[in-house]
């Protein structure tokens, strides 16, 4: 079949390119003036250890934010079986809330005098607004479509996404909003185990890990989490166990929204800029991360986010530059979606496997 041949061709091509790129990189590290480098990319100088560590750190911190958003995609997919494309907007609303609040705090001087309190307050506010938005979305847009084919809520979610983007555009305008500067003690470079790491990135890593820990505890160890997993596996049986299915679905949206809200604040503090479009690309990347890790699988979503972030940070210099591709630093997004294509071609159930519900298993 031509389609099969075409797919095989893509598989072979991508893997060949990755292998050649890696070999060329290794060769370049050994001998910068080797024949392949002279042919493809005479200007390439390879990577030093510190550069590599820097890329790894930025990839990990970026990736852990993708992971936080991906959790929301994955949880909703697990429970309702559709991709909530508006989840990126929940993240954006978190970042936007953080901006509005922190700007007010900055105006009256509290941002500098009492930074930790401000930080706690903006995180709580972001969680509040993101959670409310996610719950409202479920109630208004998705619950009435509960029993329709899965494609319909999916398309609705795209509509919801545009609606929220434009609502925020209308309310706050198209300009790029900048978070106030972070205090020096937080943002300064630190050196941990020979890794040079900006304090902000360190904070992102710590907060993301803590959030993931809390979520894991809720889902695996508490009654609420067991109810969520039961609803994800079989709604009818879950309700026969005395579980209120609607309430559990609302909880799922709320928890996903809270994670996205935390992610939004981290994003705002790290990149210090937010617009009404901020949710789009991270949202799509997080969706990619959820698929890469195995959709419906929470650990997979976080791991997928981290792998995706690292890949898009490291791969341009590791694989593309030795191949002589021009302008590699701008090819992050291309790398991320190539990773998606690779995963879909080679392991469609994701790196860590999807969690199937009982109907799908049977």
């Amino acid at each position, binding site marked *: 079949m031509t389609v099969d041949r075409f797919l095989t061709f893509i598989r072979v091509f991508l893997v060949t390119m990755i292998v050649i790129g890696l070999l060329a990189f290794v060769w370049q590290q050994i001998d910068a003036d080797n024949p392949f480098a002279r042919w493809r990319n005479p200007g390439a100088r390879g990577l030093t250890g510190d550069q590599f560590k820097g890329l790894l750190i930025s990839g990990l911190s970026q990736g852990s934010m993708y992971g936080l958003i991906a959790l929301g995609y994955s949880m909703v997919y697990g429970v309702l079986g559709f991709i909530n494309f508006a989840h990126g907007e929940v993240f954006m609303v978190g970042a936007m809330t953080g901006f509005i609040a922190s700007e007010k705090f900055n105006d009256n001087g509290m941002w500098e005098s009492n930074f930790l309190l401000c930080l706690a307050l903006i995180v709580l506010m972001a969680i509040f607004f993101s959670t409310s938005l996610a719950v409202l979305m479920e109630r208004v847009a998705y619950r009435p479509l509960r029993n329709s084919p899965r494609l319909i809520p999916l398309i609705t979610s795209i509509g919801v996404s545009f609606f929220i983007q434009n609502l925020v555009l209308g309310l706050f305008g198209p300009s790029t909003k900048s978070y106030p500067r972070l205090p020096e003690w937080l943002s300064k470079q630190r050196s941990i185990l020979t890794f040079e790491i900006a304090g902000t990135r360190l904070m992102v890593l710590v907060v993301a890990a803590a959030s993931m820990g*809390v979520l894991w*505890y*809720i889902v695996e*160890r*508490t*009654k*609420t989490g*067991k*109810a969520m*997993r*039961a609803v994800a*596996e*079989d709604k*009818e*049986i*879950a*309700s*026969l*166990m*005395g*579980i*209120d*299915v609607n309430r559990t679905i609302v*909880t799922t949206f709320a928890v996903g929204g809270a994670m996205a809200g935390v992610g939004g604040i981290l994003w705002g503090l790290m990149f210090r800029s937010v617009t009404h479009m901020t949710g789009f690309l991270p949202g799509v990347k997080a969706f990619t991360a959820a698929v890469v890790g195995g959709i419906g699988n929470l650990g997979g979503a976080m791991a997928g986010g981290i792998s995706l972030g690292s890949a898009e940070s490291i791969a341009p210099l590791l694989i593309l530059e030795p191949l002589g591709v021009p302008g590699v630093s701008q090819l992050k997004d291309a790398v991320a979606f190539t990773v998606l294509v690779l995963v879909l071609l080679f392991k469609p159930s994701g790196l860590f496997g999807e*969690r*199937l519900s*009982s109907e799908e*298993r049977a």
Partner: protein
Amino acid sequence: MSLLEIKDLKITFGGLDALSGLNFDINEGEIVSVIGPNGAGKTTFFNAISGLVAPSEGDIEFEGDSIVGLDPSTVTSLGIARTFQNVRLFPNMTVLENVMVAQHCRTRELIYGALLQTKAFKKEEREIRERAEEVLGFFGHRLIGYRLDQPAFALSYANRRRLEIARAMATQPRLLLLDEPVAGMNPIETAELTALIGRLRTEWGFTIVVIEHDMKVVKDVSDRVVVLDHGVPIAQGSYDEVSSDPNVIEAYLGRPVEAKA
């Protein structure tokens, strides 16, 4: 007053009467078997009681109050639990979790307690676990020990059936509906489970309704037998009465061919 009263129950799917004119009571502490050929409406009857299917006419009263139109989760919290003919567990959850989740409607701690690690939360989690182990212990060594932490999909077929009964027991019901509990089991397992059904009444105090095709089981466990055919009750009474009823014999075996002259 009887525990469950079925009054003129009628259920229609499109133009088909899955059940009609069903009238009977189930008394506290009874074991009642519902039998009948395939498609007689037995499972539909269970679906109606547990709230999965809405009756077209008639009423179902549990402890004197109508349960028609209630959400399945509310019905469960009132004290009715069931199992399924084709076992429906949560396959990716462990044996223990399957039984723990069934106690959802009997506990009230919320997510805040979990986040703050309150004493009440820890105490309740411990109680849920203890009760789960107690229920699983009812089946002897079969579901405890290393099996507690196995995912349900890894269990043998007979153990899945046992786990489903354990899960129903864990919702702390007063009325237990068992849909073909011994289907697909070998004779030894069947005999064992038949004995367990009796113990469910004597030791746990459940009132039990069983749908069963295995007539030996029906004979051994039931106080009373209700026979359905094409959605209509055709006989009721003790096993001996029912098994000699000509209508029942006809429903199962067909009418004898009349000799033509």
